[in-house]
């Protein structure tokens, strides 16, 4: 019987000849990532060793990655102290894949891992962050776990009680129209599946639109697979994956893609034709509350946000800057831009995009999770509305339970910044809104 990509990856990682959906395995983990919540992982890690007479020992420090992104620079003494403890811990335990708050090497974990070549096709990647699903874009099986599970993993090196998930095959056909991109595809898909439609399942992406998509775009799809409840999203590795790893991630050693069998068993197959897809908007307060832009165009917004692990990569900034260049952000709108990594920030700076944003009136912030989860900057006022390229619009997400968050693509965000209302980016020569 044919196997899906994830069945093949888990069989290899669990040392078995074959596994099928529903089997329970303990896969060896190739990469284990945490961000600031490593503070809790460290505390639980020490708790595990209490009374054992054993020295707390990480099974393989070379497989750990710790990236500061959620609250950078620290917003409070408490966060700064957590970061200090983590810094001391990674130094003591010899964790080399540590990305501190830095303009050159820092950034959002889900950008730092791929761009540094830490993620390979066929790998098992776990992270104490739900958007760890992002790394499926490189053909890895990547999923989010909690802090205590990570502490257990640091000690044992295996993920416990992993049920091999069933796989939903998503075939994306057609060519994307102008000003319609991966974000619109994934919002459309989450709307179709609903917020729990892929719960405990994997979304395996296929089709000509995927093959034509850059790794950056594939990260968007896998990143937001979790918004349909998926354990992970995965794009089987191909020529583009190998190009990305070699050219953008500096990987020089051989890479072994893991591909599904032609007769792999899928729970269901979903086909989407994107050739007539319109820009999509997720309306408050759930990500599956998705409508085509025509239904919500004209909605007044107070804050525009471009960035995050979903849409803070160079191509996202390039589309947005192209729309904004030489124009002005509407008077009563705040526009915040936060690139996903120092590397992307530098490239945007050298290519003039940062100047385009700033001269248009946007505020370009340092790389990090920024306003996305309402922790330490870019909070909304009572009753205000944000339009954001981030991944969640839950009540209170951007720091205020009386505010509304709409989710969109970078093109929609930029076009709307010029008008102050949700605006369709299609139609004008430069994609501009006026």
């Amino acid at each position, binding site marked *: 019987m044919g196997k899906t990509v994830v069945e093949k990856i888990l069989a290899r990682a669990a040392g078995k000849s074959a596994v099928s959906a529903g089997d329970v395995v303990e896969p060896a983990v190739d990469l284990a990532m945490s961000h*600031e919540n490593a503070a809790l992982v460290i505390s639980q890690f020490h708790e595990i060793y209490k009374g*054992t007479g*054993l020295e707390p020992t990480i099974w393989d420090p070379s497989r750990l990655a710790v990236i500061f992104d959620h609250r950078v620079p620290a917003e409070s003494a408490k966060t700064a102290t957590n970061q200090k403890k983590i810094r001391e811990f990674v130094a003591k335990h010899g964790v080399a894949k540590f990305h501190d708050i830095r303009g050159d090497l820092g950034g959002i974990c889900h950008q730092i891992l791929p761009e540094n070549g830490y993620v390979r096709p066929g790998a098992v990647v776990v992270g104490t962050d739900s958007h760890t699903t992002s790394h499926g874009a490189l053909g890895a099986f990547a999923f*989010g776990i909690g*802090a205590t599970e990570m502490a257990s993993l640091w000690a044992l090196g295996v993920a416990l009680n992993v049920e091999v998930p069933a796989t939903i095959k998503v075939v994306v056909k057609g060519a994307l129209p102008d000003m319609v991109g991966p974000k619109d595809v994934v919002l459309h898909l989450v709307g179709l599946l609903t917020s729990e439609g892929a719960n405990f399942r994997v979304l395996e992406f296929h089709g000509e639109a995927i093959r034509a998509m850059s790794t950056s775009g594939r990260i968007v799809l896998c990143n937001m697979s979790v918004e349909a409840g998926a354990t992970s999203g995965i794009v089987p590795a191909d020529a583009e994956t190998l190009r990305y790893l070699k050219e953008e991630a500096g990987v020089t050693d051989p890479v072994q893609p893991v591909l599904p069998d032609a007769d792999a068993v899928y729970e269901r197959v979903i086909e989407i034709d994107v050739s007539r897809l319109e820009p999509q908007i997720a309306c408050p307060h759930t990500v599956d509350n998705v409508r085509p832009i025509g239904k919500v165009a004209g909605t007044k917004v107070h804050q525009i946000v471009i960035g995050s692990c979903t849409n803070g990569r160079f191509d996202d900034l390039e589309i947005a800057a192209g729309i904004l260049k030489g124009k002005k952000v509407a008077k009563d709108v705040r526009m915040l831009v936060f690139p996903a990594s120092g590397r992307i920030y530098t490239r945007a700076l050298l290519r003039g995009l940062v100047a385009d944003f700033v001269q248009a009136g946007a505020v370009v912030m340092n790389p990090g999770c920024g306003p996305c989860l309402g922790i330490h900057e870019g909070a909304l006022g009572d009753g205000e509305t944000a339009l954001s390229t981030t991944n969640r619009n839950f009540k209170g997400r951007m720091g205020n339970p009386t505010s509304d968050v709409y989710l969109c693509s970078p093109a929609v965000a930029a076009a709307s910044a010029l008008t102050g209302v949700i605006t369709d980016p299609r139609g004008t020569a430069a994609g501009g809104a006026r």
Partner: protein
Amino acid sequence: MSKVILTLGDDVSTDVIYPGRYMATVLPTETPQFAFADLTDFNAKLKAKQVPPGSVLLAGKNFGCGSSREQAVSTLKGHELVIVAKGFARIFTQNSVNLGLRLVEVPDLEAKDGDELEIGATEVVNVSTGKRFRIVPLPPARQALIDAGGLIAYTRKRLMEKK
């Protein structure tokens, strides 16, 4: 017998259970104060110890969706609440098993605030209406973790066996 103390709808996210702005607070001993911080009345009741341990929080489908933040579990565990819902999100389910928060999945449940529930091994009886509802059991692999007393105890045992 457990009383339904609060009824919520579908897709209750971890941002609602434990807002992101409190995420710098991580220790299970400190997180309970921020449970449902934006539902100010309920949060005040919890902090005033007016909600007895074992009280039921009733919800629709996909409870705990969103972030992997474990605070969303430890904050509820700290008040010894029992979560009865039509369904739970994946990471929240695993975190609850790991930390010992009791989740009861009952897809067809009909109940409301103030109802008394009797939660058995395989079914929930709504004592207030007399109706019975089937519980979806946890997969056996997860039950083993619960039986061991949670993930910390289980991992400790595995480490000692390895030694």
